[in-house]
C-alpha cells in the first residue's frame, strides 16, 4: 500500500511538469501583449513598454521564461501579476478558500441527496417511485446550470426574499447554500442514476441472496453488503467530480457573484496574466491527481478483493 502511494505520488511529478509546460506554452502562443494593453487606446511609449517587459522577464524566449518560472516555483514563488504587481500566491490564497468551501457544500449535497435518491429508487426498481425519480434526474441533467441558477435566484431571492441574490465578498456559509445546490444538482442526478443502477443490479447478486438466507437483518444487508459493492462506480464519479468542483465553475460563480477560482482564472486569462493562469491551472491539476489517487485507494476499502502493492 505505502509503496503504491509513493509510486503514484512520484508519477505526479512528470504530469505536473508536463501540464505546466503545456499551459505556459499556450499562454505564450496567445496573441496580444498584456504590457501594451495596459495603455489601452492611449498614447504608448515603446521604449517604456520594452523596459517593463525586460523587468518582468517577458522579453526572453519561451524556454528561458519557462525555466525561470519553474526555478521560482521550486522556491515557492508563483510569480507576480503584470498589472497589479501582486504576488500570484496572494491571488490563489484569496480565491481557493472560497471555491473549496463552495465545492465541499456542493459535494456534500451531491453525496447525501444523490445516494439517498439512488438507493431509494434502486431498491424498488421499475416501480412508479423509481420511474418518478428517474424523470426528476433527467430533468436536472437537461437543464443547463445557468437556467437553474437564474431560476432559483429569482425564486428564492427576489420572490421569497429568503436569501440575498449575491454572495458577498465574505462568502459566508449561508450565502453559499444556493450556489452549492445549483452547482451540485447536475452531479446529483448522475450520482442518483449510477447508484440506482448499481443497487438494482447487485440486489440480484449471489452474496445478497446468501446474506438474506443467513437471516441477517435487512438494515445490515443493505447498509453493508449491498452499499459497499454498489458504491464503486459512484466513488469513481465522485472523485473526478470533486476535482471538477474545485476547479471552479465560471458560469455558476458568475451568476451568484462568487469570486472563486473560476472567476480568478477567467480574469487572468482576459488580462493575459500568464503566471496567474499557469499557477492556478497547475494547482487544479494537482487537485485532480490527488482526487483520483484517493478514489483508487477507496476501491480497496470498498471491495476487499482489490489489493494494491
Amino acid at each position: 500500500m505505502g509503496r503504491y502511494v509513493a509510486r503514484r505520488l512520484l508519477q505526479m511529478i512528470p504530469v505536473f511538469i508536463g501540464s505546466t509546460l503545456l499551459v505556459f506554452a499556450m499562454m505564450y502562443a496567445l496573441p496580444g501583449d498584456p504590457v501594451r494593453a495596459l495603455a489601452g487606446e492611449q498614447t504608448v511609449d515603446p521604449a517604456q513598454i520594452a523596459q517593463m517587459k525586460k523587468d518582468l522577464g517577458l522579453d526572453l524566449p519561451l524556454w528561458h521564461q519557462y525555466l525561470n518560472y519553474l526555478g521560482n516555483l521550486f522556491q515557492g514563488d508563483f510569480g507576480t501579476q503584470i498589472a497589479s504587481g501582486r504576488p500570484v500566491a496572494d491571488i490563489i490564497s484569496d480565491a481557493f478558500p472560497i471555491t473549496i468551501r463552495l465545492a465541499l457544500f456542493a459535494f456534500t449535497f451531491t453525496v447525501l441527496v444523490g445516494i439517498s435518491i439512488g438507493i431509494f429508487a434502486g431498491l424498488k426498481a421499475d416501480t412508479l417511485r423509481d420511474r418518478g425519480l428517474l424523470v426528476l434526474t433527467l430533468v436536472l441533467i437537461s437543464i443547463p446550470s445557468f437556467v437553474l441558477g437564474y431560476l432559483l435566484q429569482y425564486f428564492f431571492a427576489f420572490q421569497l426574499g429568503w436569501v440575498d441574490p449575491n454572495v458577498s465578498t465574505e462568502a459566508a456559509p449561508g450565502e453559499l447554500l444556493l450556489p452549492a445546490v445549483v452547482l451540485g444538482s447536475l452531479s446529483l442526478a448522475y450520482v442518483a442514476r449510477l447508484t440506482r443502477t448499481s443497487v438494482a443490479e447487485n440486489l440480484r447478486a449471489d452474496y445478497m441472496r446468501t446474506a438474506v438466507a443467513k437471516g441477517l437483518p435487512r438494515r445490515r444487508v443493505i447498509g453493508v453488503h449491498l452499499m459497499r459493492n454498489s458504491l464503486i462506480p459512484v466513488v469513481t464519479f465522485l472523485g473526478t467530480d470533486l476535482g471538477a468542483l474545485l476547479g471552479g465553475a465560471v458560469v455558476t460563480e458568475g451568476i451568484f457573484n462568487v469570486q472563486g477560482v473560476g472567476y480568478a482564472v477567467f480574469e487572468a486569462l482576459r488580462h493575459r496574466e500568464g503566471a496567474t493562469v499557469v499557477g492556478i491551472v497547475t494547482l487544479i491539476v494537482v487537485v485532480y491527481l490527488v482526487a483520483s489517487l484517493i478514489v483508487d485507494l477507496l476501491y480497496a476499502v470498498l471491495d476487499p478483493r482489490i489489493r494494491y502493492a
Partner: protein
Amino acid sequence: MRGAKSAKWVAGAIVVALSATACGGSDSGDTDAKEKGKPAGYVSIDVGEPQKPLIPADTNETLGSYVIQSLFTQLIDFDADGGIVYTNAESIETKDSKTWTVKLKKGWKFHNGEAVTSESYINAWNWYANTKNKQQNAFWFEDIKGYEDVHPAKGDPKADKMSGLKAVDDTTFTIELSKPVPYFQYKLGYTTWAPLPKSFYADPKAFGQKPVGNGPYIFEKWDHKKLIQVKANPDYQGPNKAQNKGVLFKNYATVEAAYKDLLSGNLDMIRQIGPKDLPKYKADLGDRAIDQEYAAIQSLVPTFYSKTFKDIDPKVLQGLSMAIDRDTITTTVLNKTRTPATSFTPKGVQGNQVLDTDVFKYNPTKAKKLVTEGGGVPGNKIWIQYNADGGHKEWVTAVCESIRNATGVECLPDAKPDFQTDLEARDNDQVKSFYRGGWVADYPLNVNFMRELYGTTAEANNGKFSNKEIDAAFKKGDNAKTLEESIKLYQDAEKMVLEKMPAIPLWQYRTNGGHSEAVDNVEVDFHGDYQLTGVTVKK
C-alpha cells in the same frame, strides 16, 4: 447541563436564522444601512479591482481613476459644461501661453498632516515623468520644458528634474513649456497631475497599496479583489467636500450581479447596466435610473495604409458614413445607450459645434452616389475590426448590414478575440480596413478630439491619417494667443477634418446606471463618472 446546552444551541440557531433573514428582507421603508460591512453614512458603488497600484500617474483606467479621484485633488476640476473649477489652485495665469504661474490655496494638507506646497507638485511631476519610474501617464508631461531630459526617447534620463518647473515660494510655482499651449490649464485637470507627499518617495510600492492624498476622501483599506474603503476627509477645504461619510468601492464578478445587489439594496450606485437588464432598468428603478450622455465618441477609423483605403477619395468615406442608419441602430441594437454623433467632438466638451453637413445623416441614395463618384471601394469589400470581448458584435453587424444595403459594398465584421489582440493588430498596421475606435475625453476640450487623434504624429492615430493642411490648422490652433481663440481655430480645423474624413464618428456614449433608494444627488461628470462627493445618504 445537557438541557441548558441544547437550549443555547437553539438560541444560537435562532440568531443565525434571524440574521440570515434580516439581510434578505424587503428593501422598502427601512433606509438604514443594511448592507453588510457598510458603516453608517457611507455609500457604495460597483467599482472593481484597479488594474495597477494606486499611483496617480500609473492609473489610466476607469476603476483606478475612480479611487484616485476620491483620494487626490489636482489644481483644477471641471463642471458639467466643461468649464474650469479651481480646486487646489487659487489661480493659474499666463501671458504668453508658454509660462504659467500657479498659485496654490493656502492651508491645504495631505491626509498625513503634511502641507501641500509647490514642491509637492514639482517633485511629483518630475518623478512621474522620469523614464526610470515607468509611469503609464508619463507622456502627459511632455509639454513641459526639459521633458526630454527626464524622459528621452531612448536610454537613461540625463536629469531627474524638468527645467521648466520652478518654485517661487511655498504656494507659487511656474511652469515653462517648450512651446506655447493655449489650453494647457485644461490638461491639469487630469488625475495624473496630482501632488504627492514626501512619504511617497521613501517607498512608492507601499504607497501604491496605501495611498496618502490631499483629496476629499482618506484611504482606509484595500481588501484586494473585494473592496476599497475610503472615509470623508473632515479637514478638506476644496469646493467638492464630501457630503457623505465615506465610499465603498465594491468588486463584482459581473454587471448583472451588481445590478441584482442594487435591486436588493446591497449596493447604492451602479455605473453601467448590463445588456441583459437594459430593456427593463428604467421600469425597475423609475426616477432612480440614470441616463446621460458623456464626452466620449465611438467611430469607425479607416486605416490609410490598407489596400482598401490607401489614397481613397474622402467622398467614399462620406458616402459610407451616410450609409449608416445611426438612429435605428442606437434605438434598437444599442438600446438607446448611445446618441448618434453629429460632429467629431461629443457634446459636453468646450468647442463642440453643430457641423453644417448631412454626412452624419442616413441617406442611402446619396450614400451610394458619393461612393460611386469617389471611385468606389477597391475590391468592393470592407472589414470592421472589433474586439469580441467588449459587447461590440451586435452593433458592428448592424452597421455592416446598413452599409451593405445602402451602398452594395460588401461589409464584413472582423472579430479579434479580445482587446489585446485588437490593439496588437492596430499597432502593427494589420487592420484590413476599419477598426472600432473609442475615445473618452481626457479634458473637456475639442482639442482633445482633434489633435490627439488626427495629427500626423499623434500616438493614438492608428489609422495613420496624415494631411499637411490639417496639421497646419492644428498648429495654428496651438499657437493661438488665448484659449478662446484656440478653441475657435480648432473648430475651423474640425470643418477641414470633415472634408478629409479621417474617421467616421458613429455615436456618443451614454451612462446608463442607477442608484438605490438609500442615496440621492447622484450626478454624472463629463467622463461619465459619478461625482461621489456630492452623493447624499437619505435619512
